[in-house]
């Protein structure tokens, strides 16, 4: 018999010591706590995202990895120039957790777009240049422009105008436009 119910370390094979440490019970508790903390963080605080598509090039490349900070807009509303994730679908944390437990696919989709128009503003696009309230918007992050056109759009109090940085694409292949503030789930971390 041993004081803690476990045989001394030296009597165990190396792989077992590496796998479970000194005490299986403590290791299981630590693993459980780590899983809960990681699960909570990855769903509620920092959501890992894999970027697919070219609409945010050159700022973000296809197949890049990033995180969405879901707490970014708790203290202040989104600002012009912020790159945000817009949820497509419900993005319900409880659904994700129950999906994971039930063995279903728990992948969610979001658009990563840049905010160019704020609530109350009027946005239009002339020859690929975004105009806000009749003034051209300086966008140093846009490296290529096609001659996109869009008639003026007046944003409501809870609406934002979002668009990708890749304006070198065909306009009809690029998803952009007006979104409700409640669709914004967070700000891209870097």
């Amino acid at each position, binding site marked *: 018999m041993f004081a803690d*119910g*476990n045989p001394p370390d030296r009597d165990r094979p190396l792989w077992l010591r590496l796998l479970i440490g000194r005490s*299986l*019970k403590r290791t*299981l508790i630590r693993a459980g706590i780590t899983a809960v903390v990681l699960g909570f963080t990855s769903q509620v605080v920092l959501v890992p995202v894999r970027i*697919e*598509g*070219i*609409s945010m090039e050159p700022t973000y490349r*296809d197949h890049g990895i990033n995180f969405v900070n879901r707490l970014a807009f708790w203290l202040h509303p989104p600002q012009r120039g912020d790159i945000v994730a*817009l949820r*497509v*679908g*419900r*993005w*319900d944390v409880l*659904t994700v957790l129950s*999906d994971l437990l*039930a*063995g*279903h*696919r728990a*992948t*969610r*989709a979001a*658009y990563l777009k840049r905010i160019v128009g704020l609530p109350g503003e009027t946005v239009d696009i002339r020859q690929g240049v975004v105009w806000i309230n009749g003034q051209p918007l300086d966008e140093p992050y846009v490296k290529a422009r096609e001659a996109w056109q*869009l008639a003026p*759009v007046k944003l409501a109090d809870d609406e934002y105008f*979002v668009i990708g940085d890749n304006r070198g*694409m065909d306009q*009809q*292949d690029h*998803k*952009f*436009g*007006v*979104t409700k503030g409640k*669709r914004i789930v967070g700000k891209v971390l870097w």
Partner: protein
Amino acid sequence: MKIATRLLGLVILLGLGWVAWRHFFPNEEHRIRRMLDGLAETVSIPAGESPVGTALALDKLLSCVTSTIEVDVDVPSEGKHTFSGRQEIRDAAMLAHQTLRGLKVQFLDVNVTLAAGKQTAAVELTVKATPPGAKEFFVEEMRLQLRKEDNQWRVSRAETVETLKL
């Protein structure tokens, strides 16, 4: 040590039992999810599909929808389209099979809400459609209405939800 090992074994055994139970005795939500998995596979278009493959896919697609189905979709770059009834669905699907060289369709973020009585259900999901070799793919949020007919769940209405509007 012994107790912890036994507990771990018991938990694993219970987990396996639960998975087996759900597999052999699925509840209605699980049946709907299975149907949707099959539907995503059916509406996908494999590259180099044979005419026989197309005919089988169309038949399977029509078996997943009610005879009074209504579809109201906003297809990226194509605009809004409305289809009613199996024949129009068949024609639209046939056209898609003839014009597209392939398409991989996945349903993500599936939320199922069963109505009281469990004869109808509402489903919210995200459709991801990827043409082969394309750098851009399409993502659309959709709402489906499902109805149970002959003990089988079928789609009675499908519509896209506008995420970004112009």
